């Protein structure tokens, strides 16, 4: 039996379908991230799990119990809100103790657990303060402590890091992960930040227009995206997409673009053959573009393209290059290379080797990947 089971969950607001036919299972101790652009239905899905919205159709089962008609307070879930929802008129102690007191926990339990939860989140020196006197990061830790002080069956996070600055965000991620492991309970986490999703999720559900577009581990989403949308959404910088046409030439398939011609590896031939002479979308991850001299595969005419460097962004581990293809109309693309490219290359055309074993092809009409 799965810890959490969501079956054909649908939510309709007026004539707008916010969530359609969302289904997934969550095992005990699993961390699932719902990620997607704003308005994709991820927060609505989370709110239905919490009981703050009633599903229009579908079922939510937590630990074998159908909770559709059960009030939020009887579902035994804990939730961390984007604005933290820390009560401003209560001290940190009272905030953390709120859930235990609501559930009439014995005073001894409250006295023991509240300082312990505060210690875990390094706010035990602030127990007598009011939220007004706390920083954003401390307030967020109060919200985490409030969620963790009692034993919920399911932990829900609604973009809890969205209002923190970058430094605090990494620290808070660690806090969330550490406590998730300690509790060993299923957790569902909503974010629009794919990097956060990749860092936190055991599995990730990419949502779009109320549907789950793809559900899988971060590596699966990255390496085998089901669709152009998932391929584009996951990964920074985003995947480069080129409109190409497949041509049959001397026994092999060639992806033909105004600015380059790339030979399709023979093992991809089977799936791609039906698309001969038809337009396709070719996806190349920025890190699958290599400086030819350093490419981990043999470079020839069939796996090279040229680009003019517009911007060079140095990184600790190399450079991000922002380039344009040669010819008109020029298409912009990005490459992450392992070498520091000197600024003298700006405005110059360089060859780049494409790792053809890792490129993706998408049907331009359906947006689905062709494998």
């Amino acid at each position, binding site marked *: 039996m799965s810890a959490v089971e969501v079956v054909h969950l649908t939510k309709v607001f007026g004539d707008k379908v916010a969530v359609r036919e969302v289904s997934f299972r969550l095992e005990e101790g699993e961390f699932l991230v719902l990620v997607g652009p704003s308005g994709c239905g991820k927060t609505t899905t989370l709110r239905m799990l919490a009981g703050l919205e009633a599903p229009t159709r579908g079922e939510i089962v937590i630990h074998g119990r159908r909770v559709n008609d059960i009030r939020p307070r009887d579902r035994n879930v*804990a939730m961390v809100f984007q604005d933290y929802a820390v009560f*401003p*008129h209560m001290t940190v102690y009272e905030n953390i103790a709120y859930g235990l007191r609501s559930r009439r926990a014995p005073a001894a339990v409250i006295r023991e657990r509240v300082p312990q939860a505060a210690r875990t989140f390094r706010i035990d020196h602030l127990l007598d303060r009011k939220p007004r006197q706390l920083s954003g990061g401390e307030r967020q830790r109060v919200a985490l402590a409030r969620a963790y002080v009692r034993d919920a069956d399911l932990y829900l996070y609604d973009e809890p890091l969205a209002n923190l600055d970058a430094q605090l965000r990494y620290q808070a991620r660690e806090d969330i992960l550490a406590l998730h492991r300690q509790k060993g309970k299923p957790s569902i986490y909503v974010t629009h930040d794919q990097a956060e999703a990749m860092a936190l999720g055991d599995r990730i559900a990419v949502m779009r227009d109320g549907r789950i577009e793809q559900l899988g581990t971060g590596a699966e989403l990255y390496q085998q995206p089901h669709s152009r949308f998932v391929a584009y959404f996951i990964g920074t910088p985003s995947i480069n997409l080129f409109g190409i046409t497949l041509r049959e030439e001397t026994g092999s398939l060639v992806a033909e673009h105004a600015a380059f011609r790339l030979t399709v590896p023979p093992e991809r031939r089977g799936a791609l053959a039906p698309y001969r002479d038809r337009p396709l979308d070719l996806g190349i991850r920025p890190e699958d573009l290599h400086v030819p001299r350093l490419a981990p595969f043999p470079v020839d005419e069939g796996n090279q393209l040229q680009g003019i460097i517009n911007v060079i962004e140095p990184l600790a581990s190399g450079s991000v290059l922002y380039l344009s293809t040669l010819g008109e109309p020029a298409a912009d693309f990005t490459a992450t290379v392992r070498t520091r490219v000197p600024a003298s290359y700006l405005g110059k055309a360089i060859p780049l080797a494409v790792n053809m074993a890792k490129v993706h092809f998408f049907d331009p009409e359906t947006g689905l990947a062709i494998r």
Partner: protein
Amino acid sequence: MAVTAPVAPPPVPTAEPAAAAPTAAAQPAVRRWQVWAFVLPAILFQFFWGWYPMLVAIFLSLTNAPIRGQVTFVGFNNYARLLADPLVAMSFRVTFVYAGLGILLTFGIPILIAILLMEMPPRLIRVMMLLWFVPLSGIASTIFWQYMYNEQFGILQFIATEVLGLPPRAFLSNERWVIFWLIFPGILMFGPGLYYMTSLQSIPRSYFEAAEIEGASFWRKIWTISLPRMRPIISMSLIFAIIGSMQEFAFPDLMTRGGPNGASRTVVMYMFDILNDGRYGDATALSVMLFAVIMVLVLVYRRLVTDDPDA
């Protein structure tokens, strides 16, 4: 009961701080001039309708305050005469009972009703807020209540005898009950409910949602979220209610003329009677006494109920 317009006593300076002017020293001369230009109308208004009448009243209360002729300084004679007048003591007693009972019976109910109304669907909330805006004529509703209280034909008598089967009662002509029956309409007319509703609307929804998920019951949410968040507006409304109900005049005057036997004659009503006798010095002295009493009440209140910095 709605706050009636203050009659004789000068307005009590409320605790509201004046709009904070920027620190003058840091401002260039032109800016400072502009600051004064904005503040001056308010200061003049306060002076001519607030402080000046108050000072004049204090001065007049120490004189014979004739309409024309020589103003004679009489020291505390007016006050001495008032303190010796048993009707003054009685009017203060009536006022305290009226204000105390009135606030006790009417103040909490609109808060509760506002909270319960906010649980209704959004469209109903808007209708309710609109209804609260509907202007009701105070005089018209007072006359309406006079008919309701009529001992022979009034609907309340009908309800008491025919519906509830109780013996007929003398609503406004019973000395023991008259103040209660004067306050009773106020229980049904929902005071500053609109303020409460807007204040409730400004509470972030996530507070209630978090409380709900944390296991709070309906009443616990009200007690731990709604009421604490409404505290500033409740505190302010209570001050106005105290000030207003200590100056109750129009409604009881129209309903009972202070009867029976002065059992519903408030201080301001008695002041009005004295004025009608032409005893202007005594009337101003009484108004200064009432002012002092209200001032003490407000100061005590401010001492007991401190501002919430977390509001």
